[in-house]
């Protein structure tokens, strides 16, 4: 069993405190860390990915009804499979559009883990650690820290969701996700009713003067950090880059290709979110995570529900990959489509499937991932992983490797131990282009 405590002593307290101090010191340490990290990518393999888009399938999508159908077996249910544009790779019938871009997608059919509770598994998949002595930073926050632009107008990590997103954990809030639900404004970005830009600026100026005196008298870095947060907030809400959130500026044909004109009911906004994600990446955002509540938690009627739910994802995912590819952005943008676990081979009495972390599937594309491949396999009934097991730390290590970040780099934690970026993760070489 993996340990979540970090197992190396001796990081100095000063370094640990550095995280808490955030702002300047945190960034200074981050830079220092990068310089000392002495990570050299394998010869001949330069980092390809510059950004990551995660399409999070909250609730846990059924692998039997998506990437690992078992036609003709009891565990496979009535779900049929279809050909893809890669000979020999067959996926479930609900993903007809995705099947046509399979040459750009890699499927892992051998994900395996132990966490079967939504929250714990989500935490584990997004941080690489089980819950422990402190809040671990999520991969989005790690990426923001490792490759983000400290002066970016839009934060380096944007969550197009309000649920199922882990944040910066013990790291400074500079690396927290900006949480925006597609179709709604950034929380509190608008002025209070009746306030003018001029009065808003007036308030900011009064705060700045007030803080200047406080900083002088009390010599506390917090006042400085406070000021930086306000400057960043001011720049964000007035940034011209915010138009990235307005996907309606796109060509109506493209909007339809993503199925982004589908009614935005019950949070089914994959199309909009994927289109916004692409626009954000174009604006320099490093990590976008899309999530729709627990949409895929199909304990009931999985066969009746999947055609519609999967249909929305099918359009959004294939639309995104096609669009990125047409724009020449696919090589530098890693797309990761996954939930926190898969679903049981056994079909329950409600025609549903329950949580199953033991053998499940996910899909990746772009950013240095070799498309048109299937990694690993389950046995005939999809009960066990039969070939090439892949653990979450290995998956995260693969993502870091694509980004040119050393997956074994250690970072200081609040309790003094040093934590690996991934818990002994080894990149899945077969996934890399």
């Amino acid at each position, binding site marked *: *069993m*993996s*340990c979540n*405590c970090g*197992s190396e*002593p001796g990081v100095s307290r*000063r370094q640990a*405190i550095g995280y*808490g*101090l*955030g702002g300047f010191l945190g960034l200074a340490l981050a830079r220092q860390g990068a310089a000392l990290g002495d990570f050299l990518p394998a010869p001949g393999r330069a980092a390809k990915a510059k950004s990551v888009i995660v399409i999070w399938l909250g609730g846990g999508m059924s692998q039997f009804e998506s990437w690992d159908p078992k036609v003709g077996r009891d565990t496979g249910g009535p779900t049929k499979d279809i050909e893809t544009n890669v000979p020999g790779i067959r996926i479930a019938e609900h993903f007809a559009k995705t099947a046509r871009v399979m040459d750009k997608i890699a499927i892992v059919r051998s994900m395996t883990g132990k966490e079967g*509770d939504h*929250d*714990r598994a989500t935490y584990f998949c997004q941080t690489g650690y089980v*819950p*422990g*002595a*402190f*809040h671990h930073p999520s991969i989005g926050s790690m990426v923001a820290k490792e490759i983000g632009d400290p002066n970016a107008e839009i*934060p380096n990590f944007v969550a197009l969701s309000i649920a199922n997103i882990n944040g910066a954990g013990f790291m*400074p*809030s*500079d690396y*927290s996700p900006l949480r925006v639900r597609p179709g709604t404004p*950034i*929380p*509190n*970005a608008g*002025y*209070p*009713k*009746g*306030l003018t830009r001029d*009065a*808003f600026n*007036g*308030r900011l100026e*009064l705060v700045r003067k*007030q*803080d200047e*005196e*406080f*900083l002088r*008298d*009390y*010599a*506390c870095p*917090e*006042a400085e*950090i*406070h000021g930086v*947060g*306000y400057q*960043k*907030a001011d720049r*964000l*809400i007035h940034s011209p880059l915010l138009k990235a959130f307005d996907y309606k500026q796109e060509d109506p044909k493209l909007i339809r290709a993503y199925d982004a004109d589908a009614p935005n009911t019950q949070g089914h906004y994959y199309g909009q979110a994927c289109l916004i994600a692409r626009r954000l990446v174009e604006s320099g955002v490093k990590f976008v995570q899309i999530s729709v509540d627990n949409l895929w938690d199909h304990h009931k009627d999985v066969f009746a529900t999947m055609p519609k739910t999967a249909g929305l994802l099918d359009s959004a995912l294939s639309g995104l990959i096609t669009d990125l590819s047409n724009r020449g952005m696919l090589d530098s943008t890693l797309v990761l489509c996954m939930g926190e676990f898969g679903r049981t081979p056994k079909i329950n009495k409600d025609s549903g499937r329950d949580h199953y972390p033991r053998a499940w599937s996910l899909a990746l594309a772009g950013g240095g991932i070799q498309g048109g491949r299937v990694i690993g396999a389950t046995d005939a009934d999809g009960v066990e992983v039969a070939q090439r097991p892949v653990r979450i730390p290995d998956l995260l290590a693969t993502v870091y490797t694509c980004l040119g970040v050393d997956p074994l780099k250690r970072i200081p934690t*609040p*309790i003094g*131990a040093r934590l690996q970026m991934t818990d002994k993760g080894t990149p899945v070489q077969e996934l890399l282009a």
Partner: protein
Amino acid sequence: MRRFATVLAVVLAASELQSQEPLSGRRLIDAEISKKRQAAGLPSAAKSDDAEFLRRVWLDIAGTIPTAEEAEQFLKDPSPGKRERLIDRLLEGDTYARNWSHVWASAILGVGDVRFQEDVADKLPRALEGYFARNEPFDAFARSVISFQTKPPANPKEERDGLSLFYTELFIRQGKESPQFLSSKFVRVFLGYQIQCARCHDHPFDHWTQEEFYGMAAFFAGAVHQERGVGERAPGVVKGLAIPDSKAPMLKPAFLETHDAPEKAETLRTAFARILTDRSSAQFSKSGVNRVWATLFGRGFVQPIDQFKAENPPTHPELLDALAAEFRSRKYDVRWLIREICNSETYQLTGRTKVRDREHERHYAAAPIRALRPEQLVDAMFVAAGLDEQGSLKRDRLLREFRATLGFDFGAPGVRFQGGIPAALLMLNGPIVAEATARSASGTPRRLERILRERADEGSRIDAIYLSALSRLPREEERDRCRSYVRSRGDAGFGDVMAALLNSSEFLLSH
């Protein structure tokens, strides 16, 4: 006045020395802290001014700030002993229990292990409030929480209490690992040890073994998830706990360090609580003192506060031991402990300083800077803006929004202030500032109408706004600056001044 106080302190200290009585409480604190500070060659800051002290002690004891009237009254009061009287009054006041129930609820919910649902964070403080309102001895409080059993409801529609919700949530999240989590949690909160690393292996850098870990977890093997909360198996029914994925024999309950086991007639959790507060009481008391101290100073003698271990010795071991012994001998009187700390000169130093580094912090060379916890911030904003908790803005909803935006552990001891964009936007444009500066049809900020009506000149209006928000009068330069600002903006400008003060570092940092 300041010189007089110093002379008095010296005389008192001298007389104590002569009488050879052991120092206790506040005098002990000051003697030990200044002895070490001097040995380190560090100077001490001056005594806080009344306004600094007023705001700090209100936030620490009552969890909010005084109204403008209360602030003005205190600042004008020339009588000696007014600080001590204020401390007593706040400890007996309405919001003391609410504030400290939040402190302990945050400790129990903790950071890291489980992400509790919002309703647990809402309701757990309410479930704990009574213990602090009654000034229940700290050991009795710990025993109640640890051995808590959900009672059948008087009527089926009765809302579930916060402790039942807490246990339920933990059972749902952790399933069969609940005993391990409950034991790790209570060991952290009440003994200040981190034992959870030993869950998977004998930890190489800590002295807990896996056997000890499961010996403690076994005390929680009798806790059962019931429909409405938590129950407990009868004494003797559950014998121990098995190590998952291991062929090792079932481990029997055995308390850390003392090796005590349950008695025949005891339920397992009752046994845990008894041993904790009896045979293990030296550490229990130290951990409790450390947490209260850390809440009042932003850092514990042992920091991180739940990492008592040989490699992480206390900054002031003698003081911690002596305070812990006195806390115990005073029957774990929590109000006594807070009263002594708040009356110490150490607590009452000014926060104004030129240097703020780790050495100065460790030796309490000046008052620490601490971020307000989300509930302190919301409550202080309500008081500053004159908003009613029963009004259109609901405190519970706001607390959720502030906790979600600022982070659950915002303002916890040892967690540094972080700021950030969502927090800045919530403070600048969020519902409280919007309501505090909302304008009536005539364009004047509604919440400031009384100040504008009662006070004719700009300077005195600005004074009132500073008293409301910062519990002090503005300095000359501040008054001039704000005056010229409102002159160019009309009455709405007063709203901007209020908004700016609510957003200032001085407002959201205790200093």
